[in-house]
Every structure is written in C-alpha cells, then in structure tokens.
C-alpha cells in the first residue's frame, strides 16, 4: 500500500505528535511491538503483576525483574469521549472524533487509550466490545498507533 493510501485510512489526520519512549526508555518495547502489529504490556517476573504505564520497578512488589508479555488485542470500552473542540490545528476538519479507553481482556485492569474507528457521531457505550487495529505511520522513523474497532 502506498503511503497516501495508508494515510487515507488513519482515524485522525497527519500532524499530531509522534509517540516516543520516555527519556529513560520506558515504553520502548511497547512501540517496537506495535510496529509488528503486536500488543505487549509490562509484567513483573516475580509477582506476575501486569502494570501500565511502564515503570522502572514493579509497583506491586518492588521487584526489578520486569519484562513485556503479549496480550490479546481485544477488550471492552471502559470510558469514552466524543471530542468536539479541535485541541490541535490538525484536528480542525476532523471533529467530532471518538476517543475510547479500553480495558484489555487478557491483562485485567490494564487500560489503553485510542480512537474508535468509523463515524465520529456513531453511538457507543461503556461495555462495548472492541479489537485493536494497528495504524501504521511510515517515514524515516515509522511508528504504529493502536486504534480500536467494534466487534
């Protein structure tokens, strides 16, 4: 697919900031995995606690043996907003758009934020089932956002 074709399928237009890991490198594994259309979440090897966002120690047990493990890219809408005010110049022609907070099925308590694919005026509700859709942003330093679509 050409870059233009890819871009035409993005939920939000070009111009929004690109996500990068923290200055300490936190989140590096997550964004590397999304490039391969996989979802991984930080997990403690000692107490098996899933934690998100990433931290340098386990918030549950204090352990330092943290890794990333694959999770199913599916869950349900925990909260949502329909955004009418264009908070960024790139969004002027795109409002309203939908942002959803999704609680993952296979990592209890872990929530991700993304956009809901489709018409910004569609009705939606807490509890609606969704699956991830990996949105590729090509370029010299490509990245992939995690978006959500209704099941």
């Amino acid at each position: 697919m050409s870059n233009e074709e890819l871009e035409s399928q993005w939920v939000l237009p070009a111009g929004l900031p690109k996500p990068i890991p923290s200055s300490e490198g936190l989140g590096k594994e997550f964004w590397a995995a999304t490039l391969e259309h996989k979802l991984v979440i930080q997990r403690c090897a000692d107490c098996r606690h899933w934690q998100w966002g990433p931290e340098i120690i386990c918030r549950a047990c204090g352990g330092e043996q943290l890794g990333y493990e694959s999770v199913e890219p599916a869950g349900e809408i925990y909260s949502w907003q329909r955004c009418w005010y264009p908070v960024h110049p790139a969004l002027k022609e795109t409002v309203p758009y939908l942002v959803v907070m999704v609680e993952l099925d296979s990592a209890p308590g872990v929530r991700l934020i993304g956009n809901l694919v489709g018409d910004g005026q569609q009705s939606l509700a807490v509890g609606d089932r969704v699956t991830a859709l990996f949105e590729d942003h090509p370029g010299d330093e490509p990245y992939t956002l995690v978006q959500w679509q209704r099941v």
Partner: protein
Amino acid sequence: MAGRTIRGQVALVGIGETTYYKRGKSPDSEFKLCIDAIRNACADAGIDARDIDGFSSYSDDRNDAMRLSSALNLRELNYSVMQWGGGGGGVMAAIANGAAGILAGYCDTVVVHRALAQGQFGRFGQAQDTPVIPGEYGHVMPYGVMSAAQLFGFRIQRFMHEHGIGQEALRAIAMASYHHAQNNPRAVMHGKPLTEQMYDDSRYITEPLHLYDCCQENDGAAAVVLMSAERAAEITDRPVYLLGAAMGSAPQQGAEAGGISYHNAPDYPTANFKTLAPKAFAMAGIKPTDIDVVQSYENFTGGVMMAMIEHGLCSPEEANEFFVPENLIVGGKLPLNTSGGNLAECYMHGLELVVEGVRQLRGDSTSQVADPRHCLCIGGPLVGPVSTLILGSADTGPTTDGGVGA
C-alpha cells in the same frame, strides 16, 4: 498523624486581589499583579509588607520568592515553599504549607500568592504543538487527547456511568457559580447570567463536558496573609482560623496527571480526595454536616461533584437530587462557590476561592451565607497531589481557657 492538629493555631488575617481580567487582557505584567495582590493583602491585614518573612505558592508560580523578597524590601526571608504539581491541586496545600512554617517556628508572617498573566506567558491550558511526545503522554496525545478537559473527561464519564448521574448535576454546578457571580462586581461574568437553556444549547467541548462545564482562563493575582493565632489576636477582631487541612493522593493515581499510568489507577473514577477528606475533618474535629459553605476548585464541573461526594457532603446515589441549583445557591442546603469561582468570578487558579472563604467567615461576601462557622475549600479535583482546607470563623478559634472551640 493521629492527634496532631493545626486546628485553631494559625489565622488567615489578610486577603488581597487585583482586578480580574479576561485572558491576555491584563495591562500589567504578572510580577506587578503579584506585587499588587500582596500589597492589598497586607493592607487588609493592617501590616507593613516589609514584615512578611515567608512565601508559599503552588503550580510552578513564576513569581520567585527572592525577587519578591527584594522588590518588597523584606527585613528577612525565613521561609519559601512551593507545592509540587502543575495543576490547581496545590492551592489549599499552599495555605497549609504556609501555616506549617509558622507552627514549626521557621517564620512569622507568610504570604500565599498566585499570579497569572497569560498574555505575557502564553495560555496555561494550551496543548503543546510538538512533533514528538515522550513517555506517559505518548500513550495519550497522539490520539487527540491533549487538553485538560480530555485528560480528565474519561474519569467524569466513567463516574457518571457507574452511578447513573445525569447532565443536570453538572449543569447545576455551573448555574450556581454564574448565579453568585451576578452579585459580585469583581466577577468577570458579572452581568452575564447563565440559564439552563443557554447551558443546554452550548457546544460540547468533549462529551460529557459542555462549554460551561469548563473553567475560564484569566489574568490577575490573589494573596492571603497568614500568622499565628496569638499574633492575629493582636491585630484583628475577626481572624479566620485554619481548622483542618490535608494534601496528597490516594494510592497508585499515576505518575503524571492525565498520563497513561493515571488512566490505569486501580480506583479510577475518583477526584482523589478519598484519603484526604477524613484527615481534614478529623483534624478540624467536625463532620461533613457541620460545613456551612463550600468553595470548590472548578477545572470541570464533574470534578467538583466528585470531590464534594468524596468529602461526604452527599452520596453518589443522592447526586441527582442533591446537585440542583436551588441546593447550591445562598439560601439552599449547601451554597457552593459563592463568588462565582473559577467558572464565573475568575480563574485565579483557585486562590480566589480561599479569599472568598475568608469573606464568608467574616460576613463580607456579596452572596453572604447566614452566620457561617465552617467553610470547606477544595483544591484541584482529578489531579494529584490535591489538597483541602477547613476554615473556621472567629468563634471557632482558641478560647479564653486555652482550649479550642469546635
């Protein structure tokens, strides 16, 4: 902490403000606004500004204690503290921190100050236009979740969902602020009443928040003078006492307000006062039913509702019946934001709420509650650290037998 209390030991003896302006409209620099508010507060207290020996502020206020100390020619600077946190969560902590310095013996006369001139420094609430976004916000902002309304809107939406709370509860909070602002000539929204129809017809910023659910942005400054109750007794016959205070956060509320770990808090739909409120009431030795008037920081109306519920002023199940305009205006069950607050008086980053709390307890408000004894002041719902104060009228302070009045 049990047993130790600040109750009745420190008094708020002076309040000062500048004219309140719409955002970017101040003719003066931010530092000049700050100086003016401090001088007004000293004049109200009847003290010489050179007798200030401590400063306390919050939210990365730009008016540096050394510059203020030199400009005001203080005899000594003995205390200078800044509360952590970039939002409005630190406002009540700034009062509490100032009082702590006095009680500890570090200093005698503290000014708590906050000034904003957004024409000079850019908008406080504006999203950065940046090509990359690292770390916590990198999991949020690329999806167009950038403004404070959006960062906190998820919590409000979830809370309303869990408890079946309708839009009318949020509307009532906006209506109360605008109602009180019509009595207050200092208020930026004075002469601009809000009707239910106007609220309902107003655009959504982000569902469930309408335009009128979101705070203004303004220019101006406010200041409050604190001293020990003993010294206050020498200079005024109507001190307002600090009875209780608490600051901080419940567990696991995230690394940065609105960042991705904030959105993974185990207790998510909270304004973050569940651990604070019981401490403040215990310190003050009073119950939520003893509160006569509330000043609560409105970044967004939904946060005010959640904060008041977490202070035990009503239960989530009662919210739809409790949050109606007639309960929240003077003459009603629990008057709220009696100067107009952040929504309709001025977004002086919440310090104007403390100034109004003092006015209420002195009997000087433009929307005066009848003989209030206890005013609750809540700072910064939905962020962390947050903070809360209980202020008491002159008859709640130290009694002649050396005890402390309830």
